[in-house]
Each structure stands twice: as structure tokens, then as C-alpha cells.
């Protein structure tokens, strides 16, 4: 049986792992190479690296960092942040990434998803969706997609965008709840379930993990194939194996 995946995420700014709360107020959380190595050793199922450095003239530096992290890990490695063209993506894949995530660029240029899927295969195209509730207290009013690190509402419904991304060739959806990100109040289960139901590709739930049961909820009630978390792992509140032991104890297949 296919195991549910636990994925630590490195948000990287100017070469350092940082952690934001609701996409702002960054705190230093270490060296990406060291963190990547540690997660590989701890039994993480994949590693995600999101470059949030604002300036775009640092492509080469990012590629070098990706190469150094890739050299240390023997698990799938996903890289995202500021990738805008097929050439940007080729550079990152050559540096050792297995998958890339597209966010703003995919919304601005949807055919980029298809171009990447054709060139590199759907398996390496993860479309990242940052979604926020239209009404914080009412899931039935749905979710809207935001870009630019959550600063800009693009006026597109999250479920529609997820479905479209799948049609265009996305291999996975990385779904972040902006309402929950950094709050530790749990994943947005209604959002996760709604997107999982809307698509046939794997959904990675992100944003809001704070307790062990949050992982369980996202993988069961939420229907997610994988769960992603950052600060919870970086600052050592939970190790990957603690999360896995907990899930195993509740009957969830993990590696």
C-alpha cells in the first residue's frame, strides 16, 4: 500500500532557512544544507525547498544552493520559488532537483504548466496554490487564490484553479492554507478535502500543523496524500519519526 508522505519544507531567503508566520515576520532557522541532511537522516519522505528571496537576479546562487542540498539527500527533492521559464526550471533540475513547484508564474502563464509537463514530464511539475477563505468562518463560501507570497488576490477560485492545473498537466498540488499558515491551529481540512475531491492527482496539505493529530486529520478527513510542515520540524518540536510513529499507531500507512 502506498504510504502517506511527511515532507519537511525549507523556506529559504538569501541562503538561509527562515520561517514566516502568515507569510511575514521571518525568523532564522538554519543552514539549508545541514537541515536537508538532517531530514534525510531522520526519515523524511521528501524534501521541499522554497526560495523566497525577493530579488530575481540570484538564480545562479539558488542553483548552487540546490546543488549542495541535492548532494546530501537520497530522497525526492522539490524546489520552487520564482521559477518563470522552462529554462529556469531546466537549470534547477540539472542542479539536482527532482520536481519543481510553480505558483505565480503558472497563474500568469498557465501554459507554462503544459510546457514543463511536456518537456520534463508531469511527475516533476507541482503546482503550488496559496488559498484563503472568502469568509474566515464559513468554508461553504470557498477559497480564493493568492500570489506574491500571499499579497495579491488573483480573483480565481482555488478549486477551479486546482482542476485547471491538473488538466494542464500538473502532477501534484501543493496546497497551502494562508488562513492557517504559521498559526499551528491545524491544516484547513475543509479546503484540503475540497481540493482532494476535485482532482485525481496527489494533494500535499500545507499550512497550520501544530499538533500530531493535525497530520492525521489532513491525511484522513482531508484526503491528502502527503503533509508538509516547516517550523514544527526546524525547531525540533516534533521529529519526523515521532509523527510517523503517531500516524502508524492510528492505522495510517507510513514508511
Amino acid at each position: 500500500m502506498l504510504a502517506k508522505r511527511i515532507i519537511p519544507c525549507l523556506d529559504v531567503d538569501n541562503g538561509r532557512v527562515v520561517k514566516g508566520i502568515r507569510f511575514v515576520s521571518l525568523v532564522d532557522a538554519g543552514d539549508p544544507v545541514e537541515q536537508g541532511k538532517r531530514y534525510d537522516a531522520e526519515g523524511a519522505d521528501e524534501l521541499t525547498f522554497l526560495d523566497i528571496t525577493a530579488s530575481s537576479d540570484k538564480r545562479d546562487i539558488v542553483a548552487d544552493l540546490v546543488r549542495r542540498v541535492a548532494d546530501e539527500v537520497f530522497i525526492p527533492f522539490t524546489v520552487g520559488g520564482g521559477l518563470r521559464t522552462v529554462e529556469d526550471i531546466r537549470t534547477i533540475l540539472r542542479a539536482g532537483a527532482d520536481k519543481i513547484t510553480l505558483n505565480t508564474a503558472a497563474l500568469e502563464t498557465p501554459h507554462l504548466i503544459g510546457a514543463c509537463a511536456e518537456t520534463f514530464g508531469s511527475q516533476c511539475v507541482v503546482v503550488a496554490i496559496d488559498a484563503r477563505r472568502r469568509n474566515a468562518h464559513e468554508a461553504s463560501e470557498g477559497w480564493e487564490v493568492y500570489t506574491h507570497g500571499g499579497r495579491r488576490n488573483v480573483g480565481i477560485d482555488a478549486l477551479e484553479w486546482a482542476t485547471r492545473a491538473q488538466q494542464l498537466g500538473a502532477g501534484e498540488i501543493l496546497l497551502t492554507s494562508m488562513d492557517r499558515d504559521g498559526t499551528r491551529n491545524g491544516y484547513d481540512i475543509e479546503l484540503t478535502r475540497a481540493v482532494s475531491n476535485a482532482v485525481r492527482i496527489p494533494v500535499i496539505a500545507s499550512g497550520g500543523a501544530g499538533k500530531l493529530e493535525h497530520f492525521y486529520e489532513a491525511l484522513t478527513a482531508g484526503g491528502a496524500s502527503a503533509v508538509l510542515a516547516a517550523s514544527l520540524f526546524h525547531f525540533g518540536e516534533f521529529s519526523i519519526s515521532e509523527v510517523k510513529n503517531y500516524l502508524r499507531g492510528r492505522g495510517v500507512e507510513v514508511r
Partner: protein
Amino acid sequence: MVQVAVIDYGVGNLRSVEKAFAATGCEAVVSGDERVLRGADKLVLPGVGAFGACMKALSERGFDQLVRERVEEGTPLLGVCVGMQLLFEESDEFGATPGLGLLQGRVRRFDDELVVPHVGWNRVTARQSHALFSAVAQDAFFYFVHSYYCEPKDQSVVAGETEYGVRYASVVAKANICGVQFHPEKSQEAGLQLLKNFARLNSRC
């Protein structure tokens, strides 16, 4: 002479395959140079993305013929992911596309009721005591990412199986021809052990 050559035909993240062999202490090079590929002791045929695109890229370089000839000479060959699928006669991807035809059978898409691609860590159950599985635990987890699976005509080539909606051949072996549907280079210890086993094979798988 190069021990293991990973065939570079312009697809995929080959750096991780090279790095994984290096981590096992085996000499491996990624090469698109025909002389290197003809001289190597063993060949790895990688592959990601679309079956048709992989087959086209392989043929454009004349490597389809090279692989057939090397296999004929008895050189051990390991197909990885789409590289395993290419060993078969035909794939259903985008209409029927012919493969290398080194093994009989075809490549089919997973049922639409499943979440596809099949992405993540899944178990491999050995069906034969094959040298590839030496020191690899039974039902060990490996990392998979694929939407199509191989359906060999001859069940005797099935060396390992995995369950995802259907029980399918995730490892095949026939004489010097081997194939794995998962990515050993992304499968930590079990994957590295399997690559090491491949690098240590004698002339026969």
C-alpha cells in the same frame, strides 16, 4: 574501463543516479558518448516523462540500437522508471507507442479511479530470490512516481511486485535484462543497496 554507464539521452535528473552509485562506492558515469556506452561493463537506462518522448530521444541518438546490441552481447542492463517501461514492446501512452521490445508485454495506464500518478513510497514484494534483492528486506519501501505500469506477457520475468489498485510488476529480470519501476536513487538505503547489487552482478543478472 567504466564500470557502470548511465545513458544520457537528454532526459531526467541523471545527477542523482550518478551520485547514488558513488555513495555505494561504485564507479559510475553519466554519458552520452557512444564509445563510453559501448565500453561500459554495465548500462543503466533511465527515463522520466512521456514514454514516446523518451523512445524518440533514445532513437535519435541511435542508442536504441546500441542498447539492443549491448544486451545481445550479455551486458547487464538496468532500466529505471520509464527506462524499465522502454524494455517492453509497446505502451498505451498517447496511443500505442513501440518500445525496445527486449521483453514481451505492454505498458498500461493505472485505472482512472486511482489517484494518478502513483507518487510516493510503496512496498516491493520479491517474487524471486534474485541477486538484485541481496540484503534488501522483503516488502521494503521504494520511491515511485509513474502513471503507467508494465504488464509482462511472461510471468517468469516478474521479480518483484507492488500493489497500487492492481498488483503489478515493479521489478523485472530476464537473463541480463533488469528493470525497476521505482527510483532506487531516491529510495535511501534500500535503493542504494539495490544499485550496489546491480553494479556487482556478473555478466548475468
